[in-house]
């Protein structure tokens, strides 16, 4: 199958990061003595353009079929060298990287002798492992040009309409009887004072009118199988249940305001929540002369250790509407930290103070006390307790994850964080993707967000989804496990042990692993009693070779 093994070893100086501690020439001389090594080369910066083009040139000239690079961490630089091997014409997985920077020169600066011995061992183990590397191809599968959006609040609908606009069919599921989410109950939206119902009404109408968007209300997702490009989703809407194939899924299930049960003796009549105040403002039946709002009710406390981002702005908006609705009404806002970030929010915060809304700070360990008709609070400015007249007390409660977010996370096999909000792939650089490819998220389901943020997160998620839908096939790298039927004794161990429930028993009693679904962890490979599962990416032979090369027989360990 393969002609004779010809391994190329490239040892990197990495400026002085490696060369400052390790003797590179000695490593090269040593590497040259190792079995199957056809060529050794050192260069100052292997990862720079000069280094990679050098590798390409040498691989072609010397006809190398394996490449070992001794430099820094593969976690960041492996893709670069894999691409370079590909361009040089060999399979990108005929490449093994050994870390002699973070794992050797940087951490053993003080005893160079042992660091040198360790580097030689690490290179020997990498060369041994490289001799058993196997080619890995990619395989592609068809992409179903259809998306599913779960949750039809402002985020879900914006996303669904955006994907439909890109020319793809969308299935839009809504748990409630009517679409619209939180906005249906709200009065006005800051800062541009659009009436909420008008805004959401337009979106609902557009969604219903657009024939590419199929809306299902009182719907629930029953089961999701398959993977990116072809998810098979079983869902029910009312009594009927459906099964459909979609390429991508967007989670926009939103969140709900916390019901502040027995906090500041909340009774829903005289002590209400912001959303109840909005409902009254919407109906216009409000005549309270003096209103006291309390921020961070049930938020930024050890049990709920997050700031819900938008309740300050909701309070400020409502305080302005209170001022307009009731002539010379007195409005107090008792806060811990006002989250009026950015340009618009700060401007609105300023406007509220100009309109005479009084902001008083309180500390978590000395909260205000709500009594009949008044609220007592220690005023830091005056250094003593004051009592504020309160016909109405409004509690700003945080947005919490909707109750069924955890069940949905089990069905979709995607994680939720400790506050039950969905956990994105990377908090900074991929905030709209899940770690599982092909599933995206936006809006309050990820974390509380203003309408503006929910809108651009929804458009962003639509963009991420369109990347997949705009191609009719999707490539997957073959770093997955595969069962060798003749060795398999059909014992179901792999079926039981796989955390993703991927292996299935096929009709002739042998286990089978669907390449598209396998995550490549190798748990089944190590558990299978018949050792019948091949794992080219980290095969038993490779690991055993590394173990065998742990200690070179002729080199006595204790020389120092």
């Amino acid at each position, binding site marked *: 199958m393969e002609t004779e093994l010809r391994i190329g070893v490239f040892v990197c100086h990495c400026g002085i990061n490696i060369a400052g501690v390790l003797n590179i020439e000695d490593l090269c001389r040593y590497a040259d003595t190792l079995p199957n090594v056809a060529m050794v080369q050192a260069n100052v910066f292997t990862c720079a353009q000069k280094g990679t083009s050098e590798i390409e040139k040498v691989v072609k000239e010397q006809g190398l079929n394996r490449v070992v690079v001794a430099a820094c961490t593969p976690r960041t630089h492996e893709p670069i060298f894999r691409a370079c091997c590909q361009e040089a014409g060999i399979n990108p997985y005929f490449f093994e990287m050994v870390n002699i920077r973070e794992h050797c020169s940087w951490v053993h600066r003080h005893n160079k002798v042992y660091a040198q011995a360790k580097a030689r061992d690490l290179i020997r183990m990498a060369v041994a492992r490289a001799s058993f590397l196997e080619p890995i191809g990619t395989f592609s599968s068809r992409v179903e040009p259809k998306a599913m959006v779960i949750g039809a609040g402002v985020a879900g609908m914006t996303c669904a309409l955006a994907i439909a606009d890109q020319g793809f069919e969308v299935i839009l599921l809504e748990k409630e009887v009517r679409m619209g989410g939180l906005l249906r109950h709200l009065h006005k939206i800051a800062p541009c004072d659009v009436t909420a119902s008008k805004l959401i009404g337009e979106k609902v109408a557009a969604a219903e009118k657009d024939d590419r968007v199929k809306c299902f209300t009182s719907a629930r997702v029953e089961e999701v199988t398959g993977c990116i490009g072809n998810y098979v989703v079983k869902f029910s809407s009312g009594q009927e249940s459906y099964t459909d194939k979609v390429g991508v899924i967007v989670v926009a299930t939103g969140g709900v305001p916390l019901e502040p049960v027995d906090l500041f003796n909340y009774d829903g009549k005289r002590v209400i929540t912001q959303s109840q105040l909005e409902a009254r403002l919407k109906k216009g039946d409000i005549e309270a002369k003096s209103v006291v709002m309390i921020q961070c009710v049930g938020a930024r406390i050890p049990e709920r250790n997050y700031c819900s981002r938008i309740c300050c702005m909701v309070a400020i908006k409502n305080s302005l509407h209170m001022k307009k609705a009731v002539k010379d009404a007195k409005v107090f806002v008792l806060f811990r930290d006002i989250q009026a970030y950015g340009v618009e929010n700060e401007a609105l915060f300023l406007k509220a103070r100009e309109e005479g809304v009084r902001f008083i700070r309180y500390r978590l360990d000395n909260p205000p006390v709500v009594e009949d008709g008044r609220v007592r609070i220690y005023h830091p400015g005056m250094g003593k307790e004051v009592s504020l007249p309160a016909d109405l007390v409004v509690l700003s409660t945080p947005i919490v994850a909707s109750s069924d977010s955890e069940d949905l996370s089990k069905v979709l096999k995607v994680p939720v964080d400790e506050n039950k909000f969905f956990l994105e792939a990377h908090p900074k650089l991929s905030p709209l993707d899940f770690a599982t490819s092909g599933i995206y998220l936006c809006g309050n389901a990820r974390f509380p967000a203003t309408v503006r943020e929910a809108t651009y997160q929804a458009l962003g998620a639509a963009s991420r989804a369109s990347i997949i839908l705009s191609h009719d096939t999707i490539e997957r790298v073959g770093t997955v496990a595969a069962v060798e039927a003749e060795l398999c*004794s059909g*014992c*179901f*161990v792999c079926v*039981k*042990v796989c955390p993703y429930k991927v292996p299935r028993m096929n009709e002739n009693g042998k286990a089978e692993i669907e390449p598209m679904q396998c995550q490549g962890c190798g748990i089944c490979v190590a558990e299978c*009693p*018949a*050792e*019948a599962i091949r794992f080219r990416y980290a095969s038993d032979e490779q690991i055993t070779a590394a173990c065998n090369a742990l200690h070179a027989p002729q080199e006595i360990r204790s020389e120092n």
Partner: protein
Amino acid sequence: MEEILTMVEEFDRILVLGCGGCTTVCCAGGAREVETLATLIRMDRKQKGKPVETLEAVTELQCEPESVKPILEKLANQYDVVLSMACGAGVQTVAQLFPNHNALPALNTLFTGRAEEHGVWTENCLACGDCVLWRTGGICPVTRCAKSLMNGACGGASEGKCEVSKDRPCAWQEIYHALKRLDKLHYLKQEPQVKDWPVHPGKVVREDLREGEATRVD
């Protein structure tokens, strides 16, 4: 492990022979366990300064001579002893086929079990030869009742647990609930039945499958 080490003490070339059938399914004698045992023996002997050479192989089904013969013939003179990781039947098949190599059992075959969960197997069938599961709602009193009573509970159970041990449910109470569920409670009212225990070692002959002409039955 101690036992095995003493067993193979005097041999220098050991063939560790796994079986691809039941002992693989219950993770006792598959290719992985063969490798583990072989490594452990080598490590132990190396410690004692008496290095040993180990050979590792796995038969498809060690209780089937046709599957054992080719392997053992191929490795004919490379081993002095066979350390078999099959069930008792497998060990004896090897012993019969290759009398001049003794076949040593690496496993103590316990029971024909049922996998309750991955890694947990329980004894449910004693191969008593006279199955009563049809009238006990699928619960076998022979193995699940401590005293293997055939006709009802002994009465010593408390809160549904057998007097023998707290975490062992009383088989007959389970049988009662099962039959109630299947509303076959009348089975309990049948007159007591005597168990027709078979003679050991049992042997089954299927003339229709055997070689040679059929013996005439007139």
